[in-house]
């Protein structure tokens, strides 16, 4: 489904991704772990098409198409979905309006009929309950005044509505309490399917207790330095990143505090 070869990317002239190679097949769940600053979000944003990051080398092919030549919205319509590490607040655009516009853009792309407000309302209410968000949130501005956990659940809700082929979840587990983590994990598990791939980006392995990955990759300094099965996550949990000879700035910072 997705094939990344020798991907290099920089931001403001500074190289962040230094040759990423990754193959993901439909139905698989991959976890990318790594210390803060290792380039996890950069990889996620580059795949989604954020132009703030410049791809300087390499290729990304999705279902035979050169992804890097597509605009962000075209990538989304081809099935890429990124759950943002920091979902954006957009006051003045209601969540409902945003979600319906997105769903209808997808439907139009697939030659399906657009949903009217009433139809969509029903669907959105059902899905919001699935991620334990009060449907009242639909009337508020996009992520406006949402707590961290509510924003993350809103991201999962969008994934459930848009039914992507590849869902990239950038630290969707961070900042969640146990209950919220369970809700998010249930949402992600509901996304799992034969024809969908999931790329979970995370700093900690606790989400992986709920969503068991098929493969785990360790990203450090802009490169994947180790790949393995689910046992690699447990090993990281036990031994920390230091075991791989990586300095984890965040862990060190936390220890210092």
């Amino acid at each position, binding site marked *: 489904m997705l094939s990344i070869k020798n991907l290099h990317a920089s931001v403001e002239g500074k190289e962040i991704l230094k040759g990423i190679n990754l193959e993901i097949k439909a139905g698989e769940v991959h976890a990318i772990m790594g210390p803060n600053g290792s380039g996890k979000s950069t990889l996620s944003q580059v795949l989604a098409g*954020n132009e703030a990051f410049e791809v300087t080398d390499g290729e990304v092919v999705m279902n035979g198409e050169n992804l890097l030549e597509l605009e962000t919205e075209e990538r989304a319509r081809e099935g890429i979905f990124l759950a943002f590490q920091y979902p954006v607040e957009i006051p*003045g655009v209601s969540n409902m309006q*945003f979600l319906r516009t997105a769903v209808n853009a997808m439907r139009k792309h697939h030659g399906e009929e657009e949903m009217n407000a009433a139809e969509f309302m029903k669907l959105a209410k059902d899905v919001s309950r699935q991620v334990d968000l009060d449907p009242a949130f639909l009337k508020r501005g996009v992520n406006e005044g949402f707590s961290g956990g509510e924003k993350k659940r809103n991201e999962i809700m969008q994934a459930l509505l848009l039914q992507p082929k590849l869902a990239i979840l950038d630290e969707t587990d961070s900042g969640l309490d146990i209950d919220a983590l369970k809700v998010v994990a249930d949402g992600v598990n509901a996304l799992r399917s034969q024809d969908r791939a999931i790329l979970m980006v995370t700093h900690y392995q606790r989400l992986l207790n709920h969503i068991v990955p098929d493969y785990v990759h360790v990203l450090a300094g802009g490169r994947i330095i180790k790949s393995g099965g689910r046992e690699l996550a447990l090993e990281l949990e036990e031994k920390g990143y230091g075991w791989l000879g990586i300095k984890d700035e965040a862990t060190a910072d936390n220890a210092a505090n």
Partner: protein
Amino acid sequence: MKPAPTLSMAFLHPAGQLLPEPLAALRKQRGTALVDMPLPTRKTENWKYSSRHLKLTDDMAISLPAEGKTGSSLAVPGYKVAFLNGVMMPEASEYPDLSGIRIQSFGDLDDDEASELAQRLDDTLGGSDEKGAVQMARLNSARFEDGLLIRLKPGAALDQPLFIIHETSADASGSAYPRIFVDAGANSQITLVEEYISSGSEPAMVNTVTEVMAGEGANVTSIRLNMEGDNIQHIGATGVVQQRSSRFESHSVGFGGPLRRHDLRVRLEGEGAECKLNGVVATRDKQHYDNHTSIEHVVPHCNSEETYRNIAADQSHAIFSGRIHIHQDAQKSNADMNNKNLLLSNGAEIDTKPVLEIYADDVKCAHGATIGQLDEISLFYLVSRGIGRREANVLLTMAFINELVEQIPVEAVRETVQGRLSHFFEQTFLEA
């Protein structure tokens, strides 16, 4: 040194429309006072950005004829008064006889009524003195050919909005001078919708003045839509004087033109009076829009709240100047002024200027102004969901003004505004 340019004498000859004698006399007197009136230049503070767009050539001085059919045959969800080139068109107007409310053309006033009105005209705009008066409004006083007097007796309430459609019909060059005077008695209530439209394609000017006297406890809502064509210079002034516990609400929505200028002046003269002034401006191409507002807190315990938003695309230019003057005696005043601006292109220009003159010490006065562009991260978030770039631009631009559009208290007007905004977006955000 070159002598300062003055108003051409050609402007000092009002057309022969029949006005009751006291009003005709007033007009004549105002005209005499304008002989040698210096025209605004770049050095005139209030006209710094707009003087070069003001075209007062002799062909503009000709009175546009008030004949022919008005295009404003549209049905409105309320009562309607139609003006064509500054003159009321009874056959295109529709309003019932209402107890306690009189809606009359100036031409229909008897001498006593006209004389009483003549005494009060211009009072809300700094009188007829040169100093402190809204300069271009004085030209209206020298030229108006008709007008609308709306009088509400104490306690009277208009049950539906009154739409005043001002059409400037420009089949030839010239100018029109519509005039409205609202005398809202104690505890009366009215919602006015002033809609400015145009037909014809010759360069023309409309110079319009609206005055509102809000009596004790009166509640006046004024909606103003500026939607004329690109051949029309619009110079408008609205003057409001508020008595004790009255409330005035203004919702102004305007699209650009060669020159759009509106001076809005509110004087809070009775304790407990409050005003809320909202404004939305959208300009594109080489259009120009200049809003000047002034709120005077003359007495204690008054509230004012002002929110203006400008959107400028292409090479257009939008200006907001907001003055708040809190007089020495006006303790416990609350004044809140906010102006946010959105530049949709690098070639567009927006100027914003808050002017605070505060002479009382126990007041709450907040003001803020920002100028920015559409947020790239928000845009990325939207398109990453498959939303097209054009639609994402529209969503974010609407988000910038939604709050103000939603506050317009007449649904049909909100729809008109939405329609015009859609048209603006179509022209502004091209399909990628």
